[in-house]
């Protein structure tokens, strides 16, 4: 059936919920993305003396600053995942079962990673000092595992859960590239939130992960249309090809803007000039939004590529309505106090000012 007929028969509620879910997932990817990225970069924390052994005090201080830059936010950031998966669960229960059943193993590994990362936040400063480096390692390993698993899930999802070596290979590539993408977000975050040597190193980390991120987005852009003739048609039939051209074009521009900013920042920052320190982070967020848009455009209206569409999977309208009423009231409030929390912790992160 074509989408328009569906819209008339199946109603507009599933579309609204798809949009809500998309916003929640995008918010999660961007917000927890920088948290996970900082976690991925944690092992690169370095003392000013150039050592990075577990016991080096300087490296330890740097790790503390890195983690305290995300400490007040990670909890709320992770809640967007609960909201996204929650909407999938409550609005599209049939798809929730199918998708998470197919992704059972990577989901379990992601949860393992998120658990390790989440508890390490607290344990690393509360457990015995001698155990701190173990929890630092857990923080790093948890962040990497969660990011990689999410990338693998994305890869398997795009290829429609087909089992084959090519699909698995692709999923591993998306897993690695999402790690790079998160590292880019995390490095961008650190450029804004830190100072001095750590900030300079964050610029180098961002440069290191920039082109891996680009490769990942290119790989996804090439593979997605090949998976389904329908998606190919959506992108490459005329006039769509020209109408959609701005999406990849803008993405490419953003990559070059980031690259240029990162090459100019070291000198500027070393002179104490923070001008443009926000550019890499903001442009990375832009890239994620564009990539997300492209993916959403490809998949719509399907929740499982070419198999289950949103109308087939949706819950009863009376239940969706009651959730929507709540969402309309509550989401602005959430937005309000999220902005408030970011304002309270605005500015450079200080070494742990616990309680």
């Amino acid at each position, binding site marked *: 059936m074509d989408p328009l007929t569906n819209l008339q028969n199946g109603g507009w509620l599933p579309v609204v919920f798809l949009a809500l879910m998309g916003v929640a997932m995008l918010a999660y990817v961007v917000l927890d993305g920088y948290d996970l990225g900082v976690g991925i970069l944690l092992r690169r924390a370095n003392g000013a003396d150039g050592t990075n052994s577990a016991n080096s005090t300087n490296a330890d201080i740097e790790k503390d600053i890195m983690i305290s830059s995300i400490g007040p936010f990670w909890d709320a950031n992770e809640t967007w995942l609960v909201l996204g998966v929650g909407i*999938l669960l409550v609005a599209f229960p049939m798809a929730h079962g199918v998708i998470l059943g197919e992704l059972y193993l990577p989901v379990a590994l992601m949860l393992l990673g998120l658990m390790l990362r*989440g508890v390490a936040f607290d344990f690393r400063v509360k457990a015995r000092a001698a155990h701190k480096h173990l929890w630092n390692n857990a923080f790093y390993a948890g962040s990497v595992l969660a990011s990689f698993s999410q990338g693998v899930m994305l890869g398997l999802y795009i290829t429609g859960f087909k089992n084959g070596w090519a699909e698995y290979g692709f999923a591993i590539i998306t897993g690695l590239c999402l790690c790079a993408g998160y590292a880019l977000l995390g490095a961008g975050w650190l450029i804004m939130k830190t100072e001095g040597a750590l900030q300079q190193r964050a610029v180098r980390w961002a440069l290191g992960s920039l082109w891996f991120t680009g490769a990942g987005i290119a790989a996804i852009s090439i593979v997605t249309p090949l998976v389904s003739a329908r998606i190919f048609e959506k992108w490459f039939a005329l006039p769509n090809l020209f109408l959609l051209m701005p999406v990849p074009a803008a993405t490419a521009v953003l990559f070059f803007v980031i690259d240029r900013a990162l090459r100019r920042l070291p000198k500027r920052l070393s002179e104490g000039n923070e001008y443009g320190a926000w550019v890499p982070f903001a442009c990375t967020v832009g890239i994620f939004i564009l990539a997300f848009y492209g993916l959403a455009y490809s998949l719509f209206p399907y929740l499982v590529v070419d198999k289950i569409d949103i109308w087939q999977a949706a819950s009863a309208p009376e239940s969706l309505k009651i959730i929507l009423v709540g969402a309309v009231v509550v989401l602005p409030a959430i937005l309000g106090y999220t902005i408030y929390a970011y304002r309270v912790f605005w500015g450079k992160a200080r070494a742990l000012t616990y309680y």
Partner: protein
Amino acid sequence: MDPILLARAQFGANITFHILFPTISIAMGWVLLFFKLRFNATNNAKWMDAYKFWVKIFALTFALGVVSGITMSFQFGTNWPGYMQTVGNIAGPLLAYEVMTAFFLEASFLGIMLFGTNRVSNRTHTIATLLVAGGTTLSAFWIIALNSWMHTPAGFEMIAGKAHAVDWFQIIFNPSFPYRLTHMLLASGLTVSFLIAGISAYRWQRNDRNPSVMAALKTGITLAAVLIPLQIMAGDAHGLNTLKYQPAKVAAMEGLWETEKGAPSLLFAIPNEKTRSNDFAIGIPKLTSLVLTHELDGEVKGLNEFKGKHPPVAPLFWAFRIMVGTGMLMLSVSWFSVWQIRKRGAPAPWLARALVGMTFAGWVATVAGWYVTEIGRQPYLVYGVLKTVDAASAIPSAMIASTFIMYLLLYAALTVAYVTVIFHLARKAQYPAASGASHMPTPALNGNFQPAKK
């Protein structure tokens, strides 16, 4: 192995691990608010010291609750796809409201509560504490509403095998909801009061004479002494409610096979499902009838009335006794502690040891209680509506088993780490920050709390 049993064991392990932490964070938010308000009112530094010590444990507990809770939102779908497909129209909105009204509220203000003391005013910090406490409680409200609905479903109709909501007020305030919510909130309060009393007694034992230790100890035992009689009454009322809606569960809790007038209350027995009778039963005559019907010779229905439709007897029978036994122990220890500390101004060494031993008594009672109620709902997932068997997924046993082992190892390690770190924090609090050289007990911290940089 049977995949359904594996899926249940895995889900049971996850939810058991999860409930340990919300049980603490729900009530501890309010205790922290109490400490904070006492400080605001008296300006006595001991209350702020107590706040600063316990907020660390709160943060740790909260983090564990969050990460184990995320697992749940995935396992609803992976382990029980039939659940959402059948009752998703009811469960969905309740879960959505929990996420939207509670999770974001508590998670956003937690950051300010933990790290914001020198970035916001004292007043705003107090409000942040209030919002976090309110958020955790609101979260309990929604999830208990859903859980209670699974026990006593109301306000819905079945259309083509799917539940559809008819009356949301009836769905939320279903017949067992007020009892279960009260019982759970009191359980949370008791768990926290024994945790605070136990850790404070531990610090006292180690000659930590910071005034905040005694303040917290008194708060803990007083709270326990007040809550435990309320909990016994709430538990009794909840039991009567269960008798009305799930008589088979009550019969299994009491180990009562035949319908009886003047049924005894069994202190010990080994329920035997094969012979459908109890081995080695010792009981107090007529007590069960008295408790459940408020008459010595009242009739109580036995398990044989529900053949094939009642839950497994032994786990319920034992879990129920563990819960009640722990409750009785809590009653005697808390009342005796209040009496002794009022009289002597300090706990005797043996009492301090007993309190330390009971630090996590609340966990034992809470988990045992949840096993009674959840195993007691079997063979149903939603009582009378959906059987557990029909909600299970087709995920291969091997995959469930391997992730199950992974989860179990992780949960065991994290539980051990959690308990160890709490005692470690208690020891560390004795000495002023990082000046490990001094082994003198901390003197009373002087001066007022200042929302300035440390």
